[in-house]
């Protein structure tokens, strides 16, 4: 067994499961196909090509961040409830590792998918952003804002997974929450109404993408719209705090679920 803190042992094992025998490479492939379609359309389609180069970079970065976060959430939503249903949680609980260590290790493994997704997005951002000296800024913003969102949503997914009786319920709840976060983006713009601004600011995903647009497209200084990052940071602190403080209590076998 790998030596080190228990969370690191779990992280290494989970990452191996995810990347060597699991869904990691396939999810990453599907993600790259999506980014290819988006970036190609942004570069060639007559309608989408209305976009100025900065907007094309912003669009691609937003898709990279939101879909990267989505796959991270879905992997973490399967982490505990999936093991419970496959009957492998019992053997994990029998090891001397702490339950908190198990959760943190699983969180770290899920975040490896976000890291890989962001790396895959770099060539697209580079090819769209060269010439307007926007690549470096887009990468720094993307990794900073995306990591905050990824940790927040992965922690949330793990909590839901630990609490859920079934894997289906965990995935459904996580997906529903993600849809609820995406839905406000489909509303017509309400820039002058306080309710529109409030909806944007309360939603961690919406406020994060608004911040990215303000810096990349409108050319605002990166400090000017920092208030938009309050809700992503609050989401990170709440979900991360709950995962570490309360989460371990729910990492247990449930009667009637396979393996228990």
């Amino acid at each position, binding site marked *: 067994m790998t030596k080190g803190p228990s969370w690191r042992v779990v992280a290494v094992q989970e990452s191996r499961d995810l990347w060597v025998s699991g869904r990691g490479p*396939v999810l990453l*492939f599907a993600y*790259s196909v999506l980014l*290819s379609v988006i*970036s*190609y359309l*942004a*570069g*060639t389609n007559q309608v989408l090509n209305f976009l100025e180069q900065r907007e094309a970079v912003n669009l691609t970065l937003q898709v990279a961040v939101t879909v990267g976060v989505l796959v991270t959430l879905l992997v973490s939503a399967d982490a505990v409830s999936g093991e419970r249903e496959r009957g492998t949680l019992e053997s994990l609980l029998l090891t001397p590792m702490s339950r908190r260590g198990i959760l943190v290790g699983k969180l770290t493994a899920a975040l490896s998918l976000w890291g890989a997704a962001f790396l895959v997005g770099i060539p697209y951002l580079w090819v769209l952003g060269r010439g307007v000296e926007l690549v470096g800024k887009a990468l720094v913003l993307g990794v900073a804002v995306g990591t905050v969102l990824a940790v927040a949503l992965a922690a949330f997914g793990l909590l839901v997974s630990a609490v859920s009786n079934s894997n289906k319920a965990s995935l459904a709840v996580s997906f529903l929450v993600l849809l609820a976060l995406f839905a406000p983006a489909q509303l017509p713009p309400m820039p002058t109404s306080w309710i529109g601004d409030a909806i944007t600011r309360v939603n961690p995903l919406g406020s994060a993408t608004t911040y990215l647009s303000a810096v990349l497209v*409108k050319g605002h200084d990166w400090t000017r719209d920092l208030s938009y990052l309050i809700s992503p940071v609050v989401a990170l602190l709440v979900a991360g705090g709950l995962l570490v403080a309360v989460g371990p209590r729910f990492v247990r076998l449930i009667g009637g679920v396979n393996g228990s």
Partner: protein
Amino acid sequence: MRRWCAAAIVITALALPQGVAAAQDAGMEITLDQSHVTTSVGRVLTLESRILNRGSAPSAPMLAHVNVASVDGGYVDLEDWSAEVTQRVDALQPGQDVTLTWDLQAVNAGSFHVYVVLLPNSGPLVPSASTRVDVGQKRNLNAGGVLPVAIAVPLILGIGAAAIRYRVRRRTA
């Protein structure tokens, strides 16, 4: 209706001498932070307007409205340039000022005047001096540069994913 109102404001504002004289009559002064901007189609430009109460009495709350007029006589659809063309200005004490920010996206090539008008409940409109905005043709993206990346990245990842699956299946067979 909204377009007619905008047209009326354009005519009124352009009929007035630029900015300051009219502003002083009303005790209010409005200035823009830039006099000339060069940009290209699709770019977002940010202008700031400073509204100052030069009078001796507090001003009533009023609206500020941004407008874009084409020098070349071309059609300008203001809603395409900005989703937020009107902002509320609260009452200002004598000597007090407030700064409003306007984000505009240049959607047409050509030369334009952008100005902000204060709309009091009664009395004359108070226009700012205008900012000249010269908008060049947009720079198209290099589609030829996107295609190799759009093909190569999924291809490499697809081959990698397939190779890992093949290896795992062989190991477990």
